[in-house]
């Protein structure tokens, strides 16, 4: 009789304890997490870890580079050489140097067909949006350098409608537009002119779109001045003040 009461008491204590703690632990609703969700999370975590790894290796590389610089002050020639190499790379990235390579030239011009009765003539002229979309398609297809009517497209390049002309790098251009792009010519041509491509869409509207593949295309450097009013370089990479 006594054992029975004791056991009952203990089990009741256990239940009260579990229910209370459980209600304390669970805040909000408890969701059943399916294996697919877990898998998705696993994939994203794995990707994050890979990214961390690559960042770690790049940190190591930089540290080794720094060590090299610190250890050999007398080998200034080597430092100058590597700095020059880096400068050339950076110039290539920023677009302040002329570049060569295989690529394509796209000619964009206003349509010459007759308008349907009541049709808006804006339908068959080249808009800034058209050029923007084509440039985006080119970049998707792997274009490495782009210029429009000789204006190099860099990170600050604006493409803006200004009446019947278009403003690019603070210069005004009217039709026709010559877009030069260096990259894989076949890929870029396919990206523009294949069914569903933006160039093909413009053709169906009645604009003139012409793509030529060119070997050894030259793209001019960016020549307008860039003034930074708000941006300041951080003292060190990744440092914020």
């Amino acid at each position, binding site marked *: 009789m006594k054992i029975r009461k004791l056991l009952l008491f203990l089990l*009741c204590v256990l239940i*009260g304890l579990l229910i209370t703690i459980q209600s304390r632990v669970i805040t909000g609703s408890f969701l059943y997490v399916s294996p697919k969700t877990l898998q998705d999370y696993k994939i994203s975590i794995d990707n994050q870890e890979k990214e961390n790894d690559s960042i770690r290796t790049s940190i190591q590389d930089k540290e080794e580079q720094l060590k090299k610089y610190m250890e050999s002050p007398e080998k200034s020639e080597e430092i100058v050489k590597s700095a020059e190499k880096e400068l050339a790379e950076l110039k290539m990235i920023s677009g302040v140097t002329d570049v060569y390579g295989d690529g394509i030239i796209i000619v964009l011009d206003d349509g010459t067909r007759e308008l349907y009765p009541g049709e808006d003539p804006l339908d068959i002229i080249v808009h800034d949006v058209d050029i923007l979309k084509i440039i985006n398609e080119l970049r998707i297809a792997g274009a490495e350098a782009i210029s429009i009517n000789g204006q190099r497209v860099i990170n600050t390049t604006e493409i803006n409608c200004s009446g019947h002309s278009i403003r690019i790098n603070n210069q005004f251009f009217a039709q026709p537009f010559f877009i030069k792009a260096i990259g894989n010519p076949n890929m870029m041509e396919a990206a523009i002119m294949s069914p569903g491509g933006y160039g093909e869409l413009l053709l169906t509207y009645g604009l003139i779109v012409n793509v030529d593949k060119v070997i050894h295309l030259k793209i001019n450097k960016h020549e307008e001045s860039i003034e930074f009013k708000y941006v300041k370089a951080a003292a060190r990479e990744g440092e914020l003040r």
Partner: protein
Amino acid sequence: MLIVFVGLVVGVIAGLFLPNFYPAQYSFYISIAILGSLDSIFGAVRANMEQKFKTAIFVSGFLANTLMAAGLAFIGDKMGIPLYYASIFVFGGRIFENLATIRRLLLKKYFNI
């Protein structure tokens, strides 16, 4: 009957003041285990009213139910099958079954229906 309430009150008070002694990721298994133990309790109350209550059966059933419910949920999670449904259906169904019997017994006892 008094000892049950005293035990519950002690358990609730202890639960309010004790720190968590299991990680939050196991709380799902604990809730299934609570369901299993509730089934045992209702079974015990019913057996008590039918005067068939045996401590050994109650205690062993309580532990077995609890462990099996939590274990099934755990194994199901590992295999990717929601096996805890089995516990929910069986224990949930039995709780209501026992409740119905208890209700009938009470009605018979006090109102002779």
